[in-house]
């Protein structure tokens, strides 16, 4: 393990984090709030990052260094990103601040705050802004800004980007990152304007757009989007939640005019079918809950979009819905968004591949000598890619179960404990019962909060990087 280079890359990422804190600082100054939380944090993070980036090192950078540094960077991002919360004095302990910051960076949106509204606007802005940063990936931003990281940045991108296969848009990885961030910024800007037109104030529309873009879910109101009571706002947010859970390379193809290729994407079709079927089923199930059928469909669509995109906004308290709808939503928490989007959880393409592998296995039993390949978008998927899908799925489920056992020490009901873990590892935010859309995570012990924070990073980085960080082998020099 080339520790010097790992620390050097980490230093550069921390410098990017420090610079990004200038924006909430500006917000604090505009609203004439106390800027000290940021004034303390920015120089501290900047100096640590700068000192680390000065380390002399060779450029031996291999997959293990990529995975290791990504995991380390995300842990440190959370740790340092928590400092403004800590200095603001609105959070009881540092662990709470860490939970909140990790929940922000991993675009989970699970909060330990019982009341959001009294917080200063600068802090609330930072809370949503880290959604936006973490959504596309802090390192992808670092690569886009600092191409000097060299040719082997693909290992970093690979470890940070969601999905089983990482494809580049253009030959240069720094250029690919720039294109991704361009699309990301463009869509975010369109949403800000749309929300403003629908009647949200500028500040709220920017904060909510950041939270939607990163598929995070932090709101400026205690009862989330339901507080606005505006169908137009809910519909706009539903559409954008779904837009941000589509693979971003499809947008690039659209911009290049390759519409046919986009329509033939297996993953997109699967995603749309799942979304549509869930909305229909839930609408029928909750038809009598709301005065009009239109309202039922609107709420069903909003919740389905919110859960499958792993955002976690709520337009109504779905914890009160019938059991069928609640279980369906929990299942959607496992599936999650498309690969290459800002959403989390297992990802549609993996679920699709798992299904096709099962189909192949059944055929293999009936025709033992048959040679079958698994295809996605008309291309053969390599066996190594399939193997990684299997490993990912097993590890994901095992970690979910293990974490459920650890959190159960706090002695809450199975529904609360299990959906809290599923929601955190899937980067969604709300679960059911006590951690439902109108509840929060304040009730858990410090230990459970740490376990859940780790779950969030495990889910965001797709399991392996964190396991590499905690494996004894990775820490050996040779």
């Amino acid at each position, binding site marked *: 393990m080339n520790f010097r280079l790992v620390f050097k890359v980490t230093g550069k990422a921390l410098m990017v984090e420090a610079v990004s804190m200038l924006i909430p600082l500006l917000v604090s100054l505009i609203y004439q709030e106390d800027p000290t939380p940021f004034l303390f944090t920015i120089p501290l993070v900047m100096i640590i990052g700068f000192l680390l980036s000065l380390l002399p090192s060779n450029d031996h950078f291999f*997959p293990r260094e990529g995975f290791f540094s990504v995991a380390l960077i995300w842990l440190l991002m959370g740790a340092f990103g928590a400092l403004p919360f800590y200095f603001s004095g609105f959070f009881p302990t540092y662990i709470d601040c860490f939970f909140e910051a990790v929940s922000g960076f991993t675009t989970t949106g699970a909060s330990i705050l019982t009341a959001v509204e009294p917080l200063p606007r600068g802090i609330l802005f930072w809370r949503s802004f880290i959604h936006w940063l973490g959504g596309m990936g802090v390192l992808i931003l670092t690569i886009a800004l600092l191409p000097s990281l060299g*040719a*082997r*940045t*693909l*290992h970093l991108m690979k470890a940070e980007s969601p999905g089983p296969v990482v494809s*580049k848009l*253009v*030959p*240069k*990885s720094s*250029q690919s990152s720039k294109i991704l961030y361009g699309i990301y910024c463009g869509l975010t800007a369109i949403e800000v304007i749309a929300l403003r037109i629908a009647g949200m104030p500028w500040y709220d529309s920017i904060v909510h757009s950041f939270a939607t873009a990163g598929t995070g879910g932090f709101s400026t109101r205690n009862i989330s989007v339901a507080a606005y009571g505006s169908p137009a706002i809910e519909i706009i947010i539903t559409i954008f939640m779904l837009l941000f859970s589509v693979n971003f390379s499809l947008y690039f193809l659209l911009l290049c005019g390759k519409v046919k290729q986009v329509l033939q994407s297996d993953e997109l079709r699967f995603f749309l079918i799942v979304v549509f079927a869930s909305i229909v089923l839930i609408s029928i199930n909750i038809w009598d809950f709301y005065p009009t059928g239109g309202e039922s469909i609107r709420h069903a669509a909003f919740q389905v979009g919110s859960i499958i995109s792993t955002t976690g906004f709520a337009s109504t308290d779905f914890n009160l819905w019938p059991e069928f709808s609640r279980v369906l939503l929990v299942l959607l928490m496992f599936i999650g968004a498309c690969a290459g989007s800002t959403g989390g959880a297992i990802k549609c393409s993996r679920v699709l591949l798992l299904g096709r592998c099962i189909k192949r296995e059944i055929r293999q039993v009936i025709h033992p000598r048959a040679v079958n390949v698994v295809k996605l978008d008309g*291309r053969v998927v*390599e066996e190594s890619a399939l193997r990684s899908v299997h490993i990912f799925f097993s590890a994901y489920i095992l970690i979910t179960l293990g974490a459920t056992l650890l959190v159960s020490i706090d002695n809450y009901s199975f529904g609360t404990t299990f959906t809290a873990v599923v929601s955190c590892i899937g980067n969604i935010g709300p679960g059911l019962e006590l951690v439902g859309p109108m509840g929060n995570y304040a009730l858990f012990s410090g230990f459970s909060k740490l376990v859940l924070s780790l779950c969030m990073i495990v889910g965001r980085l797709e399991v392996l990087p964190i396991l590499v960080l905690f494996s004894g082998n990775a820490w050996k020099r040779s």
Partner: protein
Amino acid sequence: MKIIIVGDGKVGFTLAEHLSQEEHNVTVIDTNDDALRRASESLDVMCVKGNGASISALKESGAGSADVLIAATSLDEVNMVCCLTAKRLGAKFTIARVRNVEYAMELSSMKQELGIDMAINPENATAVEISRLLRFPNAANIETFCRGRVELISFRVREGDFLAGQPLSAQTGKIRELAMLVCAVEREDGKVIIPDGSFVPHAGDRLYLVGQPSGLTAFFHLLGRHTPKLHSAFIIGGGRVAHYLTAILLKLGMRVKIVERKPERCRLLSDMLPHALIIQGDGTDQELLEEENASASDAFIALTDRDEDNIIISLYAMQQGVKKVVAKSNRQNYTGIAHAAGLDSVISPKLITASQILQVVRGMQNSKGSVMNALYKICDGHAEALEFIANETTHNQGIPLKDLRLKKGILIAVLVHKGQIIIPDGSSSITAGDTVILISRNHGILDLNDIYEDSLLDLGAAQ
């Protein structure tokens, strides 16, 4: 520039490696998953799986808007079809690797028909390179500039050479009058130095000299290491390189023996090369080498397709006292080991092919500025030797070199002014039309103006 490389083999990978490091947008096409994975994991390039000669794969990789397409698969026919298709799709410049002798001969007339702008024959290029080494047996490797009028050679300082142990500036007038210059030094620990007058060479250093061939010959005379012309060559392995090389050596009037394992190949060779002596047998067999008295030949060249064999039998030949030993090795990691064992002339067809293509690509890049004619990697790739032609766009014309602020690690080694070769001193200056040969420790010198230290003063002078 947008560059597409078809075929991710040895040459394709090396090209992709260098071109992507030079900030080009490189796309690699291959049918082999493993090769593509290797490229996508270690290089900043885009990989496309598919047959490079098919229209769909070429379209997917954007061949229509490519500036350069390099077809480097193992099949000549695929390379030619690939260039043809790409050219029709709109690629601006196509380069094909064509190794079949018959195609290579017809190529000039087929260029227009097939849309191949340049053809590279790796085996032929390697043979030319080896023949150059045999003509100049003192040096480990030779590069040429200015159409062969200036040469760059390297050799290792031995214990007891008069050079060792005193600064270059203290050498006698005889040495200083020679039209040559010590332009780079590679220390035994791998450190690369661009020397000045105060530099003290030690035994074991590899010195790079640049100058007129006559000056270099005279220098080796003074050094007492002049070897007379070689008269006989012993070649192990009768592949294509051996074929081309033998043809060249026979023309130079040398006697050539080839040892080849396969009987059919031997028969073919003896048919095509009637003046060479073809021996059927295992070239790695020491008994056979003794029987044929390999140690008595002036030059020994190992060209089998196994790198390991080549290096081992070359070491054996060195031990037997053959004056000039050359080994072919495609794998770069063996070069270091071979150097350590004292085997200096290790050549790699892969690198030779790649560097020829790189030169062409680099030359295209700066059609606006000064023209780069040649670029060679020296000192194991840690330094570069470059040849430029100065033109109107070149800054600081007519200013004596001693008044110029050059970037660190850059040495102007030779100026060719109106056909006259000058080893420059502080009072020389660059004028438009001059050929300038430089040595640089920095990479990425792509224009003559890149050598100047940027400062407000220089910018003012440029305007």
